[in-house]
């Protein structure tokens, strides 16, 4: 049976435990489960929140394309990608990737690949909301992100 990734773009928070359990429950062939959670990080006490704007429709489509590529490249038994949008305060979850496989290498690499590609290709943008009031700048893309993504080509 080919693996179909679960891809969700949502306002609400996700449950890391529940999503991990979904990829292992009732199975005997999963030997490795890697999960990555990206959280909103405060920049030296200046942020009240990051506001994540997204391109509805394309965000889901692009995450699905990236997830499909991961499934082609690694022998995964399951894959879940959840990305939130809206106003997210420091400490709260932004993104979840869970990769399951028979062996650890595929799970580690697929999760790493997913995050690198997602950062440079999934249509989401972060805007800062500041403690001192009002909105700050749009977060700028880092050259290092392109370099990270290029590791997989």
């Amino acid at each position, binding site marked *: 049976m080919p693996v179909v990734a679960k891809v969700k773009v949502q306002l609400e928070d996700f449950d890391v435990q529940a999503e991990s359990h979904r990829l292992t429950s009732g199975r005997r062939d999963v030997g490795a489960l890697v999960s990555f959670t*990206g959280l909103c990080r405060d920049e030296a006490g200046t942020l009240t929140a990051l506001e*994540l*704007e*997204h*391109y509805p*429709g*394309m965000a889901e*489509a*692009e995450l699905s394309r990236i997830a499909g590529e991961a499934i082609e490249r690694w022998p995964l038994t399951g894959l879940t990608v959840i*990305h939130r949008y809206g106003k997210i305060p420091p400490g709260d979850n*932004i*993104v979840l990737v869970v990769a399951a496989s028979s062996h650890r290498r595929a799970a580690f690499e697929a999760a790493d690949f997913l*995050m690198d590609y*997602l*950062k*440079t*290709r*999934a*249509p*989401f*943008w*972060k*805007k800062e909301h500041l403690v001192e009031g009002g909105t700050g700048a*749009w*977060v*700028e*893309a880092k050259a290092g992100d392109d370099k990270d993504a290029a590791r997989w080509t």
Partner: protein
Amino acid sequence: MNIRYFAWVRERVGVEEETIDLPGNVKTVADLITHLKGIDDYHAAAFEEEDAIRVALDQVHVETDEEIGDAREAAFFPPMTGG
């Protein structure tokens, strides 16, 4: 054609979305950008840093030399910062 803008491109243009009648000489995404820049000062300002703008046609990433063909939607946005 339906045109959508996101993040600071949207803020500079001043609208999220607009419908544009494409002149016959607009064949590629680069032609479309040139056309949009001519609409008013807001569009011109949005596309000032042309190298910093990414494009999608019908929700798929493309380069600016891509032919528009029968695409129904074009979107313009800055480099992505999700994750």
